[in-house]
């Protein structure tokens, strides 16, 4: 890999980087990155716009720490002044609203723990390859989001029965002639589950995560979780534009891998697919000794019913133990005490079943933009005799 290190950073430049890095000298930063403690890190897949995933082995807790949470930006991120920020609620409403951050925070507050996953998480695992950020496993995390229910905002504005969709707008602007990132969401989903969140895991939302407020749409892919949210507009029809009509669409029926699919044969990506991953595993194991295998499982359904592990390529499956913590659309931690019976290379597979009975498939359905990869996850572990 050809890369250029920037050893020249002056204090001002370092403070600029310091918005997202550590408050220390560049030398210290390098030392942190290079030391053994560098296990705590992000895997940057794009220098700018900044995109980074979490190493799978660090996704080993119920709550994903803010500093390790994956980052995805379409463009150079914007920064919004919280003092002048307003949220507009308009469209098919009796009384359009324009709320300051203080106005928003004065409304009844709720907290929900749920999974945020990039629609393209796992794109790099599809074959044949497709264009886009080649995420592997770590564009996902589970956080506690706090803010105001969209339902309360719509009620306060007096939403009309004619409103069936909510058009969402963020403050970030695309470069050149790139179309703006506009999305809309069925109003029932937002009334049921949507939050305008200004806190993540008890901290103010970070700039890279959409400060001062973003949309939280539990169970739906990250493209709905509009960052730097400035406007919710109730509409009769869905939003139109590139990011509704062309991007973030998924085939209605599986087709041959690598073949193009017409836009009319696709529908917008919405709910997450049932998925589990292994985050905890021994580097090596010994016959007859128990090692812990563990991970997370989640779905677009409110809960995960079951996680299973296979040691024989998916012929026989054994139930993993589900952690007692479960909240709608949060991930479920699971563990499996593995006692290898043979020496050599062991391949461990996991699969999840959600509360609607959908089972994680052996292969993900290939699709032209590489969304929602959810194939069985396999890890290979050497076993000593």
């Amino acid at each position, binding site marked *: 890999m050809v890369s250029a*290190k920037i050893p020249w950073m002056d204090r001002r430049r370092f403070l600029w980087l310091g918005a*997202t890095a550590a*408050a220390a000298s560049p030398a210290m930063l390098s030392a942190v*990155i290079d030391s053994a403690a560098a296990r705590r890190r992000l895997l*940057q897949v794009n220098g*700018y716009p900044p995109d980074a995933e979490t190493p799978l082995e660090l996704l080993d807790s119920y709550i994903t720490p803010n500093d390790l949470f994956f980052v995805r930006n379409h463009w150079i991120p914007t920064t919004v002044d*919280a003092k002048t920020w307003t949220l507009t609620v308009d469209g098919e409403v009796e009384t359009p609203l324009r709320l300051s951050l203080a106005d928003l925070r004065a409304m009844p507050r709720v907290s929900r723990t749920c999974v945020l996953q990039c629609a393209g998480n796992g794109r790099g695992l599809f074959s*044949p390859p497709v264009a886009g950020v080649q995420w592997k496993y770590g564009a996902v995390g589970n956080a506690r989001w706090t803010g105001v229910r969209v339902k309360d905002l719509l009620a306060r504005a007096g939403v009309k029965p004619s409103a069936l969709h909510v058009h969402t707008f963020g403050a970030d*602007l695309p470069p050149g002639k790139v179309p703006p990132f506009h999305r809309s969401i069925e109003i029932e989903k937002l009334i049921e589950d949507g939050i305008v969140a200004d806190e993540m895991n008890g901290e*103010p939302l970070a700039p890279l995560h959409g400060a001062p407020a973003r949309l939280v749409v539990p169970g739906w892919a990250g493209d709905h979780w509009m960052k730097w949210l400035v406007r919710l507009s109730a509409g009769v029809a869905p939003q139109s534009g590139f990011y509704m009509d062309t991007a973030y669409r998924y085939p209605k029926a599986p087709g041959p891998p690598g073949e193009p699919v017409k836009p009319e044969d696709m529908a917008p990506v919405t709910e997450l697919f049932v998925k589990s991953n292994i985050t905890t595993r021994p580097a090596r194991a010994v016959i007859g000794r128990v090692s812990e295998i563990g991970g997370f499982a989640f779905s677009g359904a409110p809960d995960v019913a079951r996680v299973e592990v296979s040691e024989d390529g998916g012929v026989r499956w054994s139930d993993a133990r589900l952690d007692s913590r479960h909240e709608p659309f949060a991930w479920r931690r699971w563990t499996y005490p593995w006692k290898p019976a043979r020496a050599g290379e062991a391949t461990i597979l996991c699969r999840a079943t959600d509360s609607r009975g959908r089972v994680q498939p052996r292969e993900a359905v290939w699709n032209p933009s590489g969304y929602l990869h959810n194939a069985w996850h396999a890890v290979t572990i050497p076993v000593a005799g």
Partner: protein
Amino acid sequence: MKGPLALLAAIALASALAAGGSPAARAEGAHRRPADRARAALPILGTRLSEYPAGDGKAIADAACLQCHSADIPRQQRLNEKQWTASVEKMIRWGAAVKETDKAALVAYLSREFGPSNTGFVPTDAAPLAAPVSSH
């Protein structure tokens, strides 16, 4: 471009970003609100910026692509010529500056360097994000 030149390019780029977005974004920004143009803190995660590998077409790629995104994005792709053609045409529609006479050379360069067998991309380790300053 390796060594000092790469470093200079990285510095120039980082400076451009610090000054208010990509050159394209700044040119485009004339009609935007000052608040959007005054992007005082443009965070990048790591301290490394990758670059395109040397070869025929690199200069075209540098000029066309790096206005809006780093070389990381093309460098991690594994696309055939048909897919690269589609990507380049999409980017031209979106404002990438590619002369009609340079298009074939750009597609050839990207297809050669980042074709279906490309496995050379490795993500860069970046420090965890610092906590934001409290706005409460």
